[in-house]
């Protein structure tokens, strides 16, 4: 039990450090990082207080590992859906910018041609 606790604790620590590093290097924006920080925190709580697992089992009625797997899967799917919406939003913004850039560039070119130099 203790060995597993240490193992899970290490995972959460690694996760936390990774998230922190990604924010520090500005690879990850804070708004998304918060989600991952909470995830690592959740794993940490799991390692420090392993009896939470049977407690959750009692509350939810899930007594099997497969059920836990289901929860994790749902969490991951929700995350992916979230990222899909983010990508869609970025694509829309990118389209808007690309179109405006193209139209503006043409205007600049035409203005330059009309300038008496």
């Amino acid at each position: 039990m203790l060995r597993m606790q240490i193992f899970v604790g290490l995972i959460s620590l690694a996760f936390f450090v990774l998230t922190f590093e990604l924010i520090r290097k500005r690879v990850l924006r804070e708004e998304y990082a918060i989600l991952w920080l909470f995830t690592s925190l959740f794993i940490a709580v799991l390692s420090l207080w392993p009896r939470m697992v049977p407690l959750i089992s009692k509350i939810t009625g899930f007594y099997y590992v497969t059920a836990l797997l289901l929860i994790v899967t749902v969490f991951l799917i929700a995350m992916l859906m979230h990222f899909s919406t983010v990508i869609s939003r970025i694509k829309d913004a990118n389209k808007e910018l690309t179109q405006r850039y193209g139209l503006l560039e043409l205007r600049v070119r035409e203005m330059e041609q009309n300038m008496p130099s």
Partner: protein
Amino acid sequence: MPAYNEEHSIGGVVRNIKALGEGYHAIVINDNSNDQTSLIAQQEGAIVIDLPCNLGIGGAVQTGFRYALANEYDVCVQVDGDGQHPTEKVPYLSKTLNEEKYDLVIGSRFVIKTDYDISCMRRIGIQIISLFLWLSTGVSIKDPTSGFRATNRKAMGFFAKDYPQDYPEPQSLIFAHKYRFKVKEVSIEMKNRMHGTSSITSLKAGYYMIKVLLAMFIDLFKKP
């Protein structure tokens, strides 16, 4: 005129449009081609809008609507840069639009049998899309995939704000129905593609059709 890597055909199409005379401007939206499309079109005297990223046909065509709207054009005719559309029919499309007060006029390959060669799979696919359009909106368009079409300022205005990006030709007809456009289809004889290959090959026609139908189905429920 949306164009992506059409350096072999764009020059001829621009020349043909310019040959239509006063009042016709060739506007090429170069969708981040990595060939000489932009240069050749400019040399032929087209107004060229270079997009810094590849947006696909929908985004490119929408840029054209935006330009036409901002520069106060009365009619905007979409023509492929690959030379398959008969540019000499552009005045006919815009005349139909103006005189009969339509918002959108589609130059179609099927209204009367013309000698345009099209693969069997594609024809079946187009017919299924057409059937879906008819069932869902009650609008009968024989060739909903045709990219040879004329729009007035009303349609340009709507499309400049909201234009489908994935399969713009058939999807825009659902949009047109939702915005209550007056749509007309006229028969046009099409040439075979002069250069390049269609974005729809006959092998992929089935897969394309399913994706188009799905996209059109979702469009029916989209909020304006």
